[in-house]
């Protein structure tokens, strides 16, 4: 086993060129980590230092109680999972139609999806809030309800999900389904028996990305959710920082680290599918 000398030299050059960006990307993670494990009295000392004198892991459990992390975590999970399921449920049929049928209005539908991508939640937030306030729901209205956030997220994820799914679906050979028809299988049964098993990976990947989108969203949930009991992590942690005279930065950083790391790991694991899916969609 010999290491290719030319490739080794090229690797050094590549890494050297990427070094500044790598440092800047990893910098916030280092800030999060080293602040999160500092004893409280070391956060505000001047001159400040990177490393703590001791790693105080108890910060995490203190933070869990002080910031009511558990409640916010549960809310984030409810909202992200709910919007993921709804978005996938409506997007899979649409993506199948785009990938398999020639039909009138297909181009118009694609344009419609592009427009929904353009109208970001923040532009519509005034109207979304009014809509939530107008709809009657269990003797009250839809403001401060998880379901309104779930429906809103799902709607804003439709374009992305349909784009990703249809570009993957188009790579699944059509012959497989057609040969199933020849063997007397109905179209619906062919989909269930032949198409869906092959489409599961694409669906899972797309679902996870819509989950991450919901997990990370801010403007809609910041507007629609009012009470502490219903706030998600992004809003809860922002409230620890915004408009406060004293910020417990070691707890805030512990909270951001805990809210960020699982999703980052998930994303790191799946990012190559995103590169592939968006590329397929773009080439088409």
């Amino acid at each position: 086993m010999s290491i290719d000398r030319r490739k080794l030299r090229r690797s050094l050059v590549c890494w050297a060129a990427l070094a500044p960006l790598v440092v800047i990307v990893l910098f916030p993670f280092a800030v999060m980590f080293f602040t999160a494990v500092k004893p409280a009295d070391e956060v505000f000392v001047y001159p400040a230092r990177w490393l703590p004198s001791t790693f105080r892991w108890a910060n995490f459990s203190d933070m869990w109680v002080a910031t009511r992390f558990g409640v916010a975590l549960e809310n984030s999970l409810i909202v992200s999972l709910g919007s993921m399921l709804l978005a996938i449920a409506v997007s899979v049929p649409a993506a199948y139609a785009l990938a398999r049928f020639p039909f009138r209005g297909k181009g118009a539908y694609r344009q419609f999806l592009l427009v929904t991508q353009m109208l970001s939640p923040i532009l519509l937030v005034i109207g979304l809030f009014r809509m939530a306030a107008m709809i009657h729901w269990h003797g009250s209205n839809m403001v401060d309800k998880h379901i309104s956030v779930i429906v809103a997220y799902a709607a804003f994820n439709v374009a992305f999900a349909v784009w990703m799914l249809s570009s993957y679906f188009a790579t699944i050979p059509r012959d497989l389904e057609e040969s199933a028809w020849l063997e007397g299988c109905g179209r619906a049964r062919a989909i269930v028996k032949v198409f869906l098993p092959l489409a599961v990976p694409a669906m899972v990947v797309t679902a996870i990305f819509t989950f991450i989108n919901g997990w990370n969203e801010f403007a809609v949930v910041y507007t629609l959710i009012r009470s502490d009991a219903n706030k998600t992590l992004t809003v809860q942690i922002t409230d620890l920082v915004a408009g406060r005279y004293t910020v417990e930065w070691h707890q805030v950083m512990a909270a951001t680290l805990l809210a960020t790391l699982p999703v980052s790991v998930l994303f790191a694991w799946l990012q190559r599918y995103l590169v592939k899916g968006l590329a397929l969609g773009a080439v088409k």
Partner: protein
Amino acid sequence: MTRIARRPLTPWLLIVPSFALALFVIGYPLYNIVFQSVHEVSRFGLIRGFCGLDNFRKVFADPIFMASLWRTLWWTLGVVGGTVLVAVPVALILNQDFYGRGVARVIVMLPWSVSLTMTAIVWRWAFNDEYGMVNVTLQRMGLIAAPVHWLATSTLAFPVEILVGILVSVPFTVTIFLGGLSSVPVDIYEAARIDGASGWQQFRKLTLPLLRPFINMAIVLNVIYVFNSFPIIWVMTQGGPSNGTHILVTYLYEQGFRLGKPGEAAAVSLVMLVMLFAITALYLRIQPREGGEA
């Protein structure tokens, strides 16, 4: 094919759920914004009566709005321009075959996985005057003598926010470029090398033209995202100090939910929508005609 022809309704039925959901959640608020923008609306959302273009007049008479409008232009130009300038070389590097490429790709993609809100919170702490790690690190390296008050004045805070904006936009843009580069056939480079083209010539004459449609797409999509980007500025400076870092979205949010002027906020929304439609119309014109609709 006959089976498809016999059931022209099927694709439409498949599309209806997603179409209905998106239309409902996006269509009604859009109508409502148009409605509120031409009515006098109280702090609590009560409609007081039709007022024509008064809300628009008030907004355009507000010097903070006009300043935010121009600042939005700089914000968008700065972030999108900077992002493309960083992302092209990064994508070219990540397209090379080198040891640790998988790890490098993951690191470059990381900022995408973090909520913009969390990124903004962490950078706000990192740029803290006395205790932030940016000042600590720069002082240790001897680059600055005393702590810099990064977020205390808008002249420094706004460029800092643009840099954070660039950092979080790079991964998505690199992803698009990598997709573009993977569709470039390798043999044309070999042909060019045989013809004696230098690396720079190959980049100018081959890579750049082949990448152009992807650069166009990245610019337009980023313009849409960055123009609408709310959390970075809202969390880092809330549009301050003294309204010096407001862009249109933060101005809009402050009007609507802090200052209790929903009518004027709705007017700002509509102004932004018109600007976005103009940008997208441009996109549809520069986008090469789509081939056969398979």
